[in-house]
């Protein structure tokens, strides 16, 4: 672990001699126990970094030869433990995005107040005072949960091969994410779909604009569902490839995996009715769920508690829903598609897939007193949507 009393080494990289001189003279104060060295170019900076232990690089972005962004990439590739502050007169969001994705987490706008720069230097130096090492066998979801539960304000950089994503936390909430061309929730889901990779946490002095407002628990759940869907589709896609290999090796060419194929493309297998109900299991307070056809026939059911007479309850509520559809239609509000029954000990949520005939199904989910209505309704909408697709 780093010795907090040790003198830190800061390298200032700028082609302007005035900036190099002023930072060398005035950057270090009583709050910062450091030595400042300077370099006039990115190339010179890399030479110095290779020869001496540097804790922090403060670099201009626009320099002849190697730019500040190129230097940032080189440092992150070869010396990932070094924190970097990027100085720029062009603090556009596009630039920041590019710099963030290249590993920069600290920025200062030129012209800057020396006090502001000192604050950023202190925040950046904290990065090098954290535990460093390797932790394996832990999922990205676990790390995100730990970050949120500990109420941190930081950024988590996730690298998978050449791809990189960043998740920003503020006081334990996920507020923003970046990945490739994606921002916000879309970027978050992309990052958590990474199969493996490296993680590192960076303290940040300046937070980006908030783009994510959902609780992290709901997003992790949604991410897991998306992963399951992707995995299911991938497993099914893999089978014909395996079938082709077996066919070529064995001479058997009639292997049938029940896959619909069109012009060489394999349609993903639709989820079974029972699999559709699995989505409710992630909602707190879940007790039971069922899919009931328009005629009242149960096509799938699941209950974590054997005491629930789902057939009786389902039949009553199926009747309820059919009558509700007629009643709401009769007063000009169209047929109802969802109903929520609140009770002293929990709630029941019903959804309707509509469409008539085989596609006409009711979904029922039962939750206990600790049930979360918002999450339950959200899952209901998803399940009904998938049910429509599966039965269409």
């Amino acid at each position: 672990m780093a010795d907090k009393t040790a003198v830190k080494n800061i390298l200032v990289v700028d082609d302007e001699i005035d900036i190099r001189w002023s930072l060398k003279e005035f950057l270090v104060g009583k709050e910062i126990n450091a030595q400042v060295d300077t370099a006039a170019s990115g190339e010179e900076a890399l030479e110095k970094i290779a020869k001496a232990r540097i804790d922090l690089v403060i670099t201009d972005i626009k320099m002849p030869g190697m730019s500040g962004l190129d230097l940032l990439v080189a440092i992150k590739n070869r010396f990932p433990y070094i924190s970097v502050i990027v100085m720029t007169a062009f603090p556009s969001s596009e630039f920041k995005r590019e710099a963030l994705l290249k590993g920069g987490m600290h920025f200062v706008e030129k012209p800057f107040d020396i006090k502001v720069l000192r604050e950023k230097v202190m925040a950046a130096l904290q990065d090098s005072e954290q535990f460093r090492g390797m932790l394996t066998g832990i999922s990205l979801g676990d790390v995100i949960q730990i970050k949120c539960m500990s109420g941190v304000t930081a950024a988590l950089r996730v690298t998978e091969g050449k791809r990189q994503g960043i998740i920003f936390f503020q006081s334990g909430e996920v507020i923003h994410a970046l990945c490739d061309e994606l921002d916000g929730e879309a970027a978050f889901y992309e990052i958590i779909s990474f199969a493996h990779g490296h993680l590192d946490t960076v303290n940040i002095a300046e937070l980006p604009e908030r783009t994510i407002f959902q609780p992290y628990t709901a997003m992790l759940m949604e991410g897991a569902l998306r992963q399951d869907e992707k995995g299911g589709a991938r497993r099914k896609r893999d089978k014909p490839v395996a079938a082709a290999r077996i066919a070529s090796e064995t001479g058997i060419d009639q292997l049938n995996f029940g896959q619909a194929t069109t012009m060489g493309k394999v349609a993903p297998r639709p989820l079974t009715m029972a699999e559709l109900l699995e989505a409710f299991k992630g909602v707190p307070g879940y007790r039971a769920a069922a899919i009931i056809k328009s005629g009242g026939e149960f096509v799938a059911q699941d209950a974590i508690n054997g005491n629930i007479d789902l057939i009786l309850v389902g039949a009553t509520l199926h009747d309820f829903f059919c009558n509700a559809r007629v009643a709401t239609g009769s007063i000009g509000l169209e047929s109802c598609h969802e109903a929520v029954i609140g009770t002293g000990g929990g709630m029941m949520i019903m959804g309707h897939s509509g469409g008539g005939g085989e596609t006409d199904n009711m979904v029922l989910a039962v939750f206990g007193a600790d049930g979360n209505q918002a999450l339950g309704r959200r899952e209901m909408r998803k399940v009904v949507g998938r049910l429509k697709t599966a039965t269409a």
Partner: protein
Amino acid sequence: MGGVFSMTEQSAKKKTIKGETLKKFISGLRKVSGYKASGVLTFKGRILARDSVDPKIDLDTVGATFNDLFQKAHEASENVGLEACYETAINTPKGIIIIRCSGPDALAHFHLIVVLGGEEANLSLVKHELDKFLAVVMTELAQ
């Protein structure tokens, strides 16, 4: 709307809701965005008071149906072991119907129905009005 509305179906002792209280309740609801209709019914479905700003919604006709729906919801919640049902919300593409129960063990056991329509429907405010009304009625009945 005026007078006194009897709630005698629930017990031998006569309980009443004052007409003035009902007026206040309905005028409060009318201020809510998306309000279309409302009604107060005994738990057996007899209409005590009703109001509608939409000519398509006649609670004299559909009030009993909604009350029956609530009874079914109540029956299902007891069967599933979730205790008594206190509220049912029925969502449609064009609106929402809220049915609230004062509680089977309350001083007066009655049902409230509110119909909201359109995207501007303010469900939270309706629920707030229902809470207020129930509190006022229970206070009156307790006196």
